Every structure is written in structure tokens, then in C-alpha cells.
């Protein structure tokens, strides 16, 4: 793969300025969804564990 091929790929015949931001926004949004999900899950499970440790039932 030559440097020319890589720059051609990134330019996407002039459409790169639209295609890459679209993919970038998608990666960011999907990533945020995962981070938020895992953050909530961990926080709630930690709280639950603490409460259950005090009072095992």
C-alpha cells in the first residue's frame, strides 16, 4: 500500500469531508452509549453490594 493509496482513500474523491465526520459521530455516539451503560451498571451494582453486605438477606 503506497502513501498515495492511503491519501486517496481518506479523500474519498472529495467526499471524505462528509463521510468521515458521519462515521466519527457514529463511533462517538455508540461509544457514549456503552460508557453510560457500563457506568450506570457498575454504580448500581456497587451500591447494591454495599447494602447487601451490611445486611445479608
Amino acid at each position, binding site marked *: 500500500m503506497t502513501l498515495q493509496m492511503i491519501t486517496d*482513500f481518506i479523500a*474519498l*474523491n*472529495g*467526499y*471524505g469531508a*462528509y*463521510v468521515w*465526520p*458521519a*462515521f466519527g*459521530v*457514529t463511533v462517538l*455516539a*455508540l461509544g*457514549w*452509549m*456503552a460508557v*453510560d*451503560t*457500563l457506568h*450506570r*451498571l457498575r*454504580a*448500581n*451494582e456497587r*451500591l*447494591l453490594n454495599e*447494602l*447487601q453486605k451490611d*445486611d445479608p438477606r
Partner: protein
Amino acid sequence: MFNFLANPARFMRIGNAVLPWCWTVAAIAGAAGLYLALLASPADYQQGDSVRIMYIHVPAAWMALATYTLIAFFAAVALVWKHPLAHLVAQSAAPLGAGFTLICLVTGALWGQTSWGTWWEWDGRMTSVLVLFFLYLGIMALAHAFDDNERGNQMSAILALVGFVNIPIIKFSVDWWATLHQPASVFRAGGPAIHPSMLWPLALMAVAFTTYFAALLILRVRGAIAARKVQALRLVKGWNR
């Protein structure tokens, strides 16, 4: 089937068993889909390489509609059978649906700018999808707008059901009103009007988005069940901790 899953412990057991499969399929379909979408598929004869935005825009739009349909279904179940797990599923799906709708709107604006020369047009399709985004936000906000959790859940479920009329409006908006947006080319009478070299990456990305959504939904419901138990334990122990 539904009653079977309505038990939180059973839901978690099955969810945890399905979870690794969701991640695996999402990773494989996503990698293959991206390879085909960005490298192996041809540029469109009219749109050139900008057509590659389709491989995320269209699956995101499908997810936005499917997630809302799922929420409306669980909202109905929650209202009719008063099952608390149904509220948890609806509430857990809402932020994910909002995320997919946002992806759809932003990628659509970028695609619109390069192929129509405008980021936005107040036509039927775009306006109804924007309404969908606000419906998601409303469903999330209403659930927490009341001191009484039960009441918040109910109001949120009612909004979800009322807002469901928007789903057929979105689907058929391109047929009912003059629009810049193209009509359906995959789910249409007469079969997909799209070449297999473009249908494959589209289908793979759709599978990746769906399984990714399923994995996150399982984890969100798990977190919501834990939060529910925390609430219950705190009630038992008194408010002050």
C-alpha cells in the same frame, strides 16, 4: 414467552447467557460491514463515495424506529399488566433509541449537504424524525418528573404509546409528502431496489447495530434491576442512608 421472561432473575440469567453472543456477532458483523462499506463496495454512479454514509445512516434509522416500537410494546405491557420489569425495559431502551436517532439525524445532515446542498429541510421525513428524537427525550424526562416513581413510569408509558402514531408517519412520510428524501429502497413492495454489493454491507451493519443494541439493553436492564433493589433495600432500612 413473555410471562417466562417477566421474572427479573430469569431475565438476567437468559440475558447473561445471550450477552457474549451479542458482542461476538456485533464485532464480526461490524468488522465485515465496515470493510465492505468503506473498501469493497462500489461508489454510487450518481452520489460517488458519499453513498458510504448510507451504511450507517440507514441502519441507525431502522434502529431508531425499531427501538421506539419496542418501547411502545413494553409500555403497553406495563400499563395493561402492571409488570414493573416492562417499565425497566422501556426506560432502558429510551436513551439507546435517542442515540440511534441522533446518529440518523447527524449523518443525514452530512449526507444531505453533499447530495442535496442543504443540511436540513423542514419536510415530512426530517421533521417527523426530529419529533421522534424529542419523544425519546420526553419518555426519559417524564419518568423522573414525579416524586412518585410509579406515576412517572405511567406518564412515560402513556407518552410512548401516544407517540407511536409517529412511527407510521415517519415510514410513509416519503410517500405522502413532497420531499428531498428518497423513498424506501429496501423494505418496499417488489423487493429491495438495491444491488447486492450495497445490500450486503447495509445488512451486516444492521445486524451489528441490532446486536450491539441488544447487548447494551441487557446491561442497562441489569443496572436498572440493581437500582430497583437498592431502592427497595433503602426503604426497608429507612431513608437516612
